[in-house]
């Protein structure tokens, strides 16, 4: 079960978290871009064709929600929210963007959940060959 044609951007101000997730996803041949701030992530979104953005809610320069609102202008990437607040519930505007409670993952997560989510989102694009 490999996703060599999927590009994922991880936005998290905690380096260890994004790198560990990167390692895990890369084992599934996913191309992973990393970003420690919202601002940098927005630039990466413009540069690269990103299919999925995994975004933390609390960041130094902006919140994950602000980031999504800014990003959606130029990008049609999908989102997974990875948060340290265990009780985060989605607000209405995010629901309008098609983000559901299923797309919210709580730290620390079993990283297989990310694979399950990618499978759910991009199952038709996975390449069994490799």
């Amino acid at each position: 079960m490999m996703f060599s044609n999927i590009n994922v951007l991880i936005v998290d101000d905690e380096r260890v978290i994004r790198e560990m997730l990167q390692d895990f996803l890369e084992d599934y041949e996913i191309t992973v871009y990393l970003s420690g701030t919202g601002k940098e992530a927005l630039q990466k979104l413009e540069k690269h064709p990103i299919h999925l953005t995994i975004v933390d809610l609390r960041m130094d320069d902006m919140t994950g929600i602000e980031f999504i609102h800014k990003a959606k202008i130029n990008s049609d990437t999908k989102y997974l929210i990875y948060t340290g607040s265990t009780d985060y519930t989605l607000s209405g505007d995010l629901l309008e963007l098609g983000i559901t409670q299923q797309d919210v993952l709580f730290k620390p997560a079993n990283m297989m959940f990310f694979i399950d989510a990618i499978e759910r989102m991009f199952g038709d694009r996975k390449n069994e060959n490799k």
Partner: protein
Amino acid sequence: MKEENNNTRSPESESKNIVIVDDMPKNIQVIGTVLQNNGYLINIAHNGPKAITLVEKMLETQKPPDLILLDILMPEMDGFETYTKIKGLPGSEEIPIIFLSAVTETKKMVEGFKLGAVDYITKPIASEELLLRIKTHLTLRELHQKIAANNKILEKTVALRTQELTQKNRILEAEIKKRKEKEFVIDSASSPIIITNIDETITYANPAFLKLWGYKEKNEITGTKFINHFTETTELENGLGELKLKGKWENEIQAVKKDGNIFDVNISLSIVYDKLKHPVGLTATFIDISQRKRVLTELAKTKQTLDNIINSMPSAIIGIDSDHRIVQWNLEAEKITNITAEYAGNKKLTDIFPDMSKYVDKIKLSINNHKIYKFEKIILDIAETRIFDLIIYPLAENEIKAVVLRIDDITKRKKLEEMIIQSEKMMSVGGLAAGMAHEINNPLSGISQSIQNFIRRSSPDFPKNIEVADACGLDFNAFQIYMEKRKLKKYLKIIQDSSDRAAKIVANMLQFSRRSESKPVDTNLPALLDKIIELASVDYDLKKKYDFRQFQIIREFEEDLAEVPCLPMEIEQVLLNLLKNAAQAIKDQKKREAEPCIRIGLYREDKWVRIEVEDNGPGMTPETCNRIFEPFYTTKPPGIGTGLGLSVSYFIITHNHDGEMFVRSTPEKGSCFTIRLPWKRRVK
């Protein structure tokens, strides 16, 4: 006496003594013969002086002349002079004297009449005229004498009567005076007094009585029946009966005023006797006690009010005097000690309340130095499970040496305080947890994700691992064996489990800060509870640890329960937690007396719906009970519980649902958790 005898005799009067005074023997002879022939006794004097001597003698011998015939013209002493002299003799006043005169002398007779002569006869004497005149004058005299005698008797009688009357008068006057004095005394007496006759009819009432009963005049009341002025006639009649036996009777009764108003008097009855010791009536004296009665009633009322106040105080109030004897013991004191006020009264404090022995010194000090002593949170032998405050304070009045003990059962207050503290603790934990959770979750994620990668990349199941190992010249099989032998795999597992546990704790803690966005929904609690029971028995984690089929589950749901507004997910979490705890408790119980059993109850209360979860497990000590809702307090062995389950439950019920949650437990009998949810949610 003589006269009286005469009275009974005929007027034929031989016994009549007639004195004839004349100087002429012929005249005497003629007159004497006529008179003698007619039955008169005659006495003769030939001149004035002899006549006087004769009459004097006759008067002395008690045979006075009944009539004197006196010649006017006599030598030596004429008739007028003789007349005057005879009349001068004592006792002669009444003797009729008839003058004998010649026709030529008639003019002189005026003088004779002037002197008092009754008649005169002219000479020569006509015998018939003589007899007639004599008889007339004798009769007249007799009548005079009779009248005189009668008069005398009358006079005597009158004198006697007058004397009698005078004496009686004197006695009466004395009596009146006495009575007047008496009445004056009674009249001026300030106590109401009445006197009755033997028929109990009032004959006298003094002004004080009139005034008290509201009458103006004595005659309004005299003549009335004594008993009519009172209400309790039967009692009064009994009293009168008793009075006759004992001579005195006293009581408090109700009297009726003139205007019909009723008032209280003290009555004192006694019998009045006459000189012969016969009862002749009653005297009644009164004391107006209506004022006193009113004051007494008022006092009783005041005392009752005070007693009521003291008794309705939630504190035990015990008053003791300087001898440490009990003078006050209110209802709460009865409740705490189980000793009635009646029994406690006047007993030594320490005799009936030994717990107080410890404080005797302080009580003494309080009495003597006028100081207040306070002991907080004390435990008394009479009620070991409860907590009290004791205050000893001296009475405010300096003169009276006494103290009051106030004992308050503060168990409930303390519980409440504890609950508030608990709540506050939860809140602060909540605030702390929210901040902490994020900070801890990040490093935790670091650990967790790293270890996931580590495990994954050391696993033979992942082809890329073998690929990379081969490229490095590492025998992956040997690597696996090495990992096993040096327990690296076990360490990895421990790191992973530990991080999972830490994550769970943080997740639980975060619930304190959770502001539930979802609104409460009207929930059918019986259905929810059934679902939870079902869930508990199929829950895999639970099944692994305790088989719910081993327990008897008693459902005790009140029927037709209305829906309760709540957050079903949270209630589910709380109840599941309670069920797990109950199951755990039963499982932990070493010796078992009864079949393991969990009772789940659902009851309707006035403002609440009450949920109970009770187990017959080992129960808890009071200390555990007190701390059971504290965060991180756990009785489970390390690693089994987070110590947050119950505190989160408590938080959910009290904070999120405005409910109540508490536990009661008896060691070795079991525990019962109670949740109360309000029927109506307060608007926040």
